[in-house]
């Protein structure tokens, strides 16, 4: 574990909230980097990040320091992301499906070499297509394809076996392709 983190954690355990704020400052970017793949709204993203750090703070007694603090923090962040995806999935069943923007739709229906896709449009397309995937499938495919993590890393982050991760990723990819074909054809 990082020596500075170790010192901070020791002082936080003694009740220093200023040190906790310092710990948050040191690791907030890492948490934001993971969570922004699952939430595009800035305020909602900050709420999720806060939820993550409060979980960290409550679970600090359980952290034994054997693994680097960053790994432990990433696992908690991924768990918060999964809970968020589950909540969103429940909410998505209750509200009307979002329509894709004109530009994203145009790109999707374009020929083999359409214009460059904007990052925001790509996320819009994926967000729309992923609605048919389970929360765990969404998490795995995002970790693998967008964050570029290996099966071993995803397995460590999610607590699932390597085989389960592979199967989930394959299934998610197949479902995504089907959903995108439907979008290309203009079906919902």
């Amino acid at each position, binding site marked *: 574990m990082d020596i500075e983190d170790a010192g901070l954690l020791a002082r936080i355990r003694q009740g220093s*909230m200023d040190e906790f704020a310092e710990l948050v400052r040191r690791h907030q970017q890492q948490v*934001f980097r993971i969570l922004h793949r699952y939430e595009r709204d800035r305020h909602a993203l900050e709420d999720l990040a806060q939820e993550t750090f409060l979980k960290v*703070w409550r679970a600090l007694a359980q952290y034994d320091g054997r693994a680097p603090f960053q790994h432990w923090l990433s696992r908690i962040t991924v768990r918060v992301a999964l809970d968020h995806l589950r909540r969103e999935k429940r909410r998505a069943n209750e509200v009307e499906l979002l329509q894709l923007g004109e530009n994203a739709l145009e790109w999707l229906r374009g020929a083999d070499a359409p214009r460059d896709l*904007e*990052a925001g*449009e790509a996320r819009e397309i994926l967000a729309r297509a992923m609605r048919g995937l389970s929360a765990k499938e969404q998490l795995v495919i995002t970790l693998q394809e967008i964050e570029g993590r290996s099966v071993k890393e995803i397995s460590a982050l999610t607590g699932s076996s390597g085989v389960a991760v592979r199967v989930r990723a394959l299934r998610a990819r197949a479902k995504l392709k089907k959903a995108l074909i439907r979008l*290309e054809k203009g079906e919902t």
Partner: protein
Amino acid sequence: MNDPKLNRIFATARRDVCPTPTEDFARGVAAAARQQIREEPRTLLDQLGLLFPRYAVAAGALIVLCIFAEVGQTFLANPEGSDEFTELCAQWLYTAKGD
């Protein structure tokens, strides 16, 4: 939808810039944690207080106290039962046979 097109969507989404936290984000989180400490129940009684609102406990205790007081008073005044009970027996149980 072919694989290269899907991969291109993933690759483009990967480039999406992560927003930076606001300057007071860390202080806000620490304040929220402090708030939780204040709201956290400290003793067993506090925790029970969360489960059972205090007024309900006080009202329950008062009812139990009244019942005990009433039973105790009745027993001390007339150990073999109340006058009403004797009267009831006389009217409804013994009268039928007596007629």
